[in-house]
């Protein structure tokens, strides 16, 4: 697994006067991997991305691309490319000219063919002569992607590229983006604050908070075995009972007393119908409030019902 990572961060930090944006982050990303940096705004994930792109210089630490330190390289000398949050398409250039921009700067040949191929890949054939102002948000996002992909960068850096899209489109674009990444085989470093995005698209992800990398692992790892309470609650809802956590979907609720499980007696406070499932909120006798996600086809609950709340010991989240 550790055989020659394409990108390696060696304890990089970024300090601004009176503020540590990134603190001692170390990370190895393998070739062809879809890696996400996940965290709330201000956690340092975008600063980390910008240091890889070369827009910011690390205060300490080393960034290695293909084993070589890229500390001294300007953004235009690094073989990485960024898809910006607002896409940063050149408004005075057509789709075709935007996608050509990087190839022309590098005086590469076969420009026409490569642009045509990448525009087909992102399904923008036929829009070549449009200006960015004359295409939809989703199309702009794909132009930004094509503009970077066409350069075949060692690592493609994506800074919350889906956050400007409307929610309906976002899910569809997630699948498309993952599909494109699989087809071109380029390493993606994807920054997002949306845990669903990170879980659904990544091969591995790193959760950041307060400038520090909290945990790195596969989506299953970090969701099912979070190392800290922060990671647990950032990746999804958690019921905190007696110092351990249980996810709502692993929390069961019934009127009969279960046997062989960890269980509490409780009273239903309210139920929320969410369409595909029902959230039942109950207050335990011991004082904690828990939410159980139950099927709408199962036993019905009403506020005031005396119930038992229970879960399997294996579903408990434990922390160091």
């Amino acid at each position, binding site marked *: 697994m550790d055989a020659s990572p394409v990108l390696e961060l060696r304890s990089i930090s970024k300090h601004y006067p009176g503020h540590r944006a990134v603190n001692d982050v170390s990370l190895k990303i393998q070739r062809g991997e879809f890696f996400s940096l996940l965290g709330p705004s201000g956690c340092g994930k975008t600063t980390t991305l910008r240091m890889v792109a070369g827009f910011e210089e690390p205060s300490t630490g080393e960034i290695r691309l293909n084993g070589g330190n890229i500390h001294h390289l*300007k*953004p*235009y000398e690094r073989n990485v490319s*960024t898809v910006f949050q*607002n896409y940063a398409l*050149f408004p*005075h250039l057509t789709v075709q000219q935007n996608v050509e921009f990087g190839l022309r*700067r590098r005086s590469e040949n076969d420009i026409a063919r490569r642009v045509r191929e990448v525009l087909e890949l992102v399904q923008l054939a036929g829009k070549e002569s449009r200006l960015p102002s004359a295409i939809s948000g989703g199309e702009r996002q794909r132009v930004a992607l094509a*503009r*970077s992909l066409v350069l075949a960068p060692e690592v493609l850096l994506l800074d919350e590229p889906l956050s400007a899209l409307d929610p309906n489109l976002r899910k569809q674009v997630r699948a498309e983006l993952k599909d494109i990444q699989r087809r071109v085989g380029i390493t993606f470093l994807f920054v997002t604050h949306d845990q669903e995005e990170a879980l659904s698209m990544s091969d591995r992800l790193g959760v950041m908070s307060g400038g520090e990398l909290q945990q790195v692992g596969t989506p299953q790892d970090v969701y099912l075995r979070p190392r800290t309470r922060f990671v647990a609650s950032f990746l999804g809802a958690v019921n905190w009972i007696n110092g351990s956590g249980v996810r709502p979907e692993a929390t069961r609720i019934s009127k009969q007393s279960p046997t062989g499980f960890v269980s509490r007696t409780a009273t239903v406070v309210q139920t929320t119908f969410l369409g595909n499932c029902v959230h039942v909120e109950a207050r335990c006798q011991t004082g904690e409030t828990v939410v159980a996600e139950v099927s709408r086809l199962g036993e019905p609950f009403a506020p005031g019902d005396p119930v038992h709340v229970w879960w399997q010991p294996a579903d408990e989240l434990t922390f160091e």
Partner: protein
Amino acid sequence: MNRLRAWFLAPSWTVTIVLFLAPLLIVLAYSLLTRGVYGGITQPWTIESYQRLGDFLYLAILWRSFWIAGASTILCLVLGFPLALFISRSDKRKNLYLSLVILPFWTSFLVRTYAWMFLLRDTGLINTILQRLGIIHDPLPLLYNDGAVILGLVYSFLPFSVLPLYATLERLDRNLLEAAADLGAKPWATLTRVVLPLCAPGIRAGSILVFIPCLGAYLTPDLLGGGKTVMIGNLIQNQFTTARDWPFGSAVSLALMTLVMVLLLGLSRRDEEGLL
């Protein structure tokens, strides 16, 4: 509602008609009359003044005005662009620098032009210092030539190019510069391929704001050109003063105005075709 709007618009309409349109019509009438012996105008109506506009002498003055105004405009843009770029990038001192750009407007234009004469003349500050230092023997001919006029015009109108350039640079999305670098553009390519094209509206506005007043300038060529460098402005001024030919002066004024308006229309049409 409409009546209220009419009342609010009345003052500006009055000013426009009384102080702008009416004088313009008077100038038009003058240009079509005959010159009086001691200035002023008399009957009969004639288009003789307009016929004289085609004389080689006047076309030469027009040409000279154009190239001096053109050279001044280009210099203002070339000098103004780096300054505007610098100001748009200085986060904290932005307002200080902008006030410094506007500072010369706080003193009289005439005084500032005289100050240049004091600097440039044969016994002026520059020549005196250079002579004292033994760098030159005879004074350099710094004053009373085209160069002095262009210097004076550039000095006077530089803020008019800096401010619109600053306005467009300030609005420029910095992500675009990062995107250009990210895609492999070296700083020079970023400047020519991204910054300059996106600054086109500011460059256009700056050019217009500098070129038009330069074309009609008369004080600067009069004082710094020493009467040797005659521009259209001086020609018009002379017709109303020493030459006592009001009809011809009026005809030249109207011809200049028409020319400028045709140029502006051409530019505004290109503006509509353009992006912004």
